[in-house]
């Protein structure tokens, strides 16, 4: 599979920073490479614990995470992040094979999922959708402060 973005539809993402949390090194390197070309800045963590620490330090616009990871899994990390910022945009990688995880994720108000195996176009479309939602809420809060 070609993981290099050829869609030319990632301009919107250039305005946003992403925290990417993944314990599998091979996947991490691939996704980091394609995200680095498309986003303002990418912060990478190896598990939920590192991810949470990096989140507190960097306050990224979007969090993108695997679910099953050592130390702290993606859901535990998402739950901790949502406590810090209930409006944080979070997307989780999933194969929809574990309904319990999915139920917990929806309870955390996580509405974006990146389906495994990864489809590059769908991946960027999902990230773009999140970016559009962020632009929308930023515009709304600007209007409210005027």
């Amino acid at each position, binding site marked *: 599979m070609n993981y290099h973005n050829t869609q030319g539809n990632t301009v919107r993402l250039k305005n946003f920073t992403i925290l990417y949390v993944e314990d599998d090194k091979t996947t991490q390197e691939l996704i980091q490479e394609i995200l680095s070309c498309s986003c303002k800045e990418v912060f990478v963590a190896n598990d939920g614990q590192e991810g949470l620490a990096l989140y507190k330090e960097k306050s990224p616009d979007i969090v993108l995470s695997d679910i099953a990871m050592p130390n702290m899994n993606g859901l535990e990390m998402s739950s901790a992040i949502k406590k810090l910022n209930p409006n944080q945009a979070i997307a989780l990688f999933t194969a*929809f094979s574990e309904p319990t995880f999915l139920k917990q994720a*929806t309870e955390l108000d996580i509405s974006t999922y990146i*389906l495994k195996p990864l489809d590059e176009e769908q991946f960027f*479309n999902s990230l773009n959708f999140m970016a*559009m939602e962020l632009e929308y809420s930023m515009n709304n809060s600007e209007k409210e402060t005027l």
Partner: protein
Amino acid sequence: MENNLNKISDLINNQNNLEDEKRFKIASASLVCSIVDLDLANPKEYCSLFQEKLNLPQEEFRQIRNNINNDTLDMEGKISYIKSELGNNMYQIMEFLKILNKFAIANGCTQKSYREFELIRDKFLKEFY
């Protein structure tokens, strides 16, 4: 603002025209039916979602569901119709997609239903990406 837009009558432009609202509800419910296998879903949860998000009481939805196959519009036609009713406004369309997303990730969601949601979402937004 999001709460105000949750009701379908707030999403369509011509809020006074009941016929428009009905057509909009039929097209929307039909898209939901293509995302979720309602025979396998949790009926209680979906009934309350239809009521809350699409302003569709159980009996009205039942009637619509029974007539979905008689609808002359195909998927592209329904999407085009809904977009037009939403004034082709990107943010209105996103609000509508958030409603569809609620159905896609409700209890009983499968990879197939989420994938279908993504396909519909991307058809709605292709010119905005």
